[in-house]
């Protein structure tokens, strides 16, 4: 939306005659640009000049999704087929578009792949060179477009269409270029998305894009292999970074990587048990620093770790070979730790919330009713919760109903 977090200027918008005039001129210029693009597309002028017009418009308004689509058509139906590394005009559909690869038996010989490699070298040597020049290769065009996008993405990091268009461009590279070259493009995306996440470590477009880039780089077609280790490292780095403990996006990503990480490490039972302990230590120490112990991100990650013990069937698990007795013991230990945490943090509602939840869970795992002591504890914790967290009184009241029933 145009006005998320837009504070109003102190003075009301009373514009002078000149300002009003300037705005009208701007509107005319904008509409003129729009009309010129539409007229050119209607006449099927899929040229560099028209591409430049779309660049101009999209810099003013990157939310204009139709113009991103125009740009896609300009490339597919025009510039890719006119590029110096294509030998025949495209008939329009992607499958008939010239594909530069050493692996298909159609055109491109290894010679043309070499040519593209040279182009890559040239563009790397001269950062100024990528442009949408008439005789550029497909690689040149894609690289130039990726570079065109970057400053706009920095300016509008939450614009869906920008991220989509960027992915589409790279998918075009997948289809049209040699995997060795395409891989280089995707590798650069890791740097880009790293920068975007430094700017805003919670940008969910950024995290989503990162997952896609990683899965491409891991793919067989790009001769990839697993990146689960460095990605896991990345979440550790993010969590330890500024405000990292409150970075639920990083915690979440971590929760998704763990099962695969352990699988790929061929972790045995002892290693897995150790790993789980380390994760509990990490999240609990996170609770003890920063805004301890009130930041909810760490508490949700704590919930994830507990879930791997309490709801392991059909869910992510860290210690699949734990016996039921072992799990019950572990949950019991966590309950003791939580009770200890209360010391000095009597005003932390998260601890009471967890105590109530896992006391009930423990009874469920042991297939028994709550004992009288547990029931009384839970009631007391709920009294604290009702005092500390009045916003969610309705929830505490609902929970209270469970304990008020006679055993």
């Amino acid at each position, binding site marked *: 939306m145009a006005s998320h977090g837009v504070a109003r200027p102190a003075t009301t918008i009373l514009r002078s005659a000149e300002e009003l005039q300037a705005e009208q001129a701007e509107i005319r210029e904008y509409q003129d640009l729009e009309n010129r693009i539409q007229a050119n597309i209607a006449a099927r002028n899929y040229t560099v000049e028209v591409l430049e017009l779309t660049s101009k418009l999209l810099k003013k308004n990157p939310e*204009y999704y139709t113009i991103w689509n125009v740009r896609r058509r300009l490339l597919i139906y025009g510039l890719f087929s006119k590029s110096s590394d294509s030998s025949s005009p495209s008939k329009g559909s992607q499958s008939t578009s010239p594909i530069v690869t050493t692996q298909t038996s159609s055109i491109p010989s290894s010679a043309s792949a070499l040519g593209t490699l040279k182009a890559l070298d040239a563009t790397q040597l001269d950062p100024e060179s990528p442009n949408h020049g008439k005789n550029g290769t497909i690689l040149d065009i894609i690289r130039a477009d990726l570079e065109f996008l970057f400053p706009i993405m920095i300016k509008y990091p939450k614009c869906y269409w920008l991220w989509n268009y960027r992915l589409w461009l790279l998918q075009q590279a997948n289809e049209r270029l040699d995997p060795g070259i395409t891989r280089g493009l995707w590798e650069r995306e890791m740097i880009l998305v790293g920068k975007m996440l430094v700017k805003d470590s919670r940008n969910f477009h950024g995290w989503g894009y990162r997952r896609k880039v990683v899965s491409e780089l891991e793919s067989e077609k790009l001769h990839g292999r697993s990146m689960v280790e460095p990605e896991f490292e990345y979440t550790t780095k993010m969590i330890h970074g500024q405000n990292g403990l409150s970075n639920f996006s990083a915690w*979440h990503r971590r929760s998704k990587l763990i099962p695969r990480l352990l699988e790929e490490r061929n972790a045995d039972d002892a290693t897995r048990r150790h790993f789980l302990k380390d994760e509990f230590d990490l999240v609990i120490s996170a609770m003890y620093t920063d805004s301890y112990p009130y930041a909810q991100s760490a508490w949700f990650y704590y919930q994830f770790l507990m879930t791997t013990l309490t709801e392991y069937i059909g869910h992510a698990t860290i210690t699949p070979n734990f016996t039921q007795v072992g799990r019950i013991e572990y949950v019991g230990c966590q309950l003791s730790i939580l009770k200890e945490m209360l010391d000095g943090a009597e005003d932390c509602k998260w601890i009471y919330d967890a105590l109530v939840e896992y006391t009930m869970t423990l009874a469920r795992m042991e297939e028994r009713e709550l004992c009288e002591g547990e029931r009384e504890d839970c009631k007391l914790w709920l009294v604290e919760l009702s005092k500390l967290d009045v916003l969610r009184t309705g929830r505490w009241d609902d929970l209270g109903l469970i304990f008020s029933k006679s055993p």
Partner: protein
Amino acid sequence: MSLASGPGVAGSLSLPEELQLAIEPHVKYIQSLDSRRDELEYWLTEHLRLNGLYWGLTALHLLGRPDALPRDQTIQFVLSCQHENGGFGAAPGHDAHLLYTCSAIQILAMIDAFDVLDEKGKGEGGGREGVGKYISSLQNQTTGTFAGDEWGEEDTRFIYTALNALSLLSMLDIVNVDRAVEYIISCENFDGGYGVSPAAESHSGQIFACLGALSIANRMDTVNVDKLGRWLSERQVEAGGLNGRPEKQEDVCYSWWVASSLTMIHKLHWIDGKKLTNFILKCQDPKEGGFADRPGDMVDVFHTCFGVAGLALLEFPGLEEIDAR
């Protein structure tokens, strides 16, 4: 319908203790939106025109003024956004996309104009069928999810928009609902929430979309109500407003995404409705009309719709009842 923000600003006047809903200014604000063609922002937001019309019209219906925009012009504008393939774009000349197609169908349903669509609509077979075929063509037959348009972007929002529009058209049977449901289930996270795709972080907007789709598919049985209810109730912050994800800022639009999600799982009472009501009311400009994301910011029609919808959900007096389930 202008998507330009302002001119009003939320909570600019000193508000009385007992906050009121400024119904008349809000109606006037929405009515005035299409007369702002002298502002550059009016043109820069053309890609949201049809959504804007839906947001404005929904707010007007909830405010008890369904006739405040001219019906004929509304129908005419909506139909002018339709393409030969049956889909709708944001405005005439803008490409077809599921997001706008859903808005178009929602508007036509709201003003009871499917007969005009049947008479004048485009797409294969024309009328409702033409739109239905466009939507069903976007379903991924393997995974069950939907693409937003011909370029293939996938997002759980599109499952909701597809099923919502098809359900309004009484054409749910032309897509594979079971497979769409399976896809949504694959997007569920340990916290009970849903993201844009499998493995994506839970997000209140996506949760609304996924629950909405499950509700339409009559598959709310698949939801982990206690976990999701817990996560959603933790979206309420001290100021009374709701945020979209843990430790993010509150925003009026989540008054709808979160509160309607809580309603769908029968847990709206897990947050403080009175505090939320007060927060929403503080986000209005009682003089010029409209709502902003937060007090002190510029108003716009998107936040106006979801502010009013949030209030209606909380049964604020003077507003039409809303059934989020």
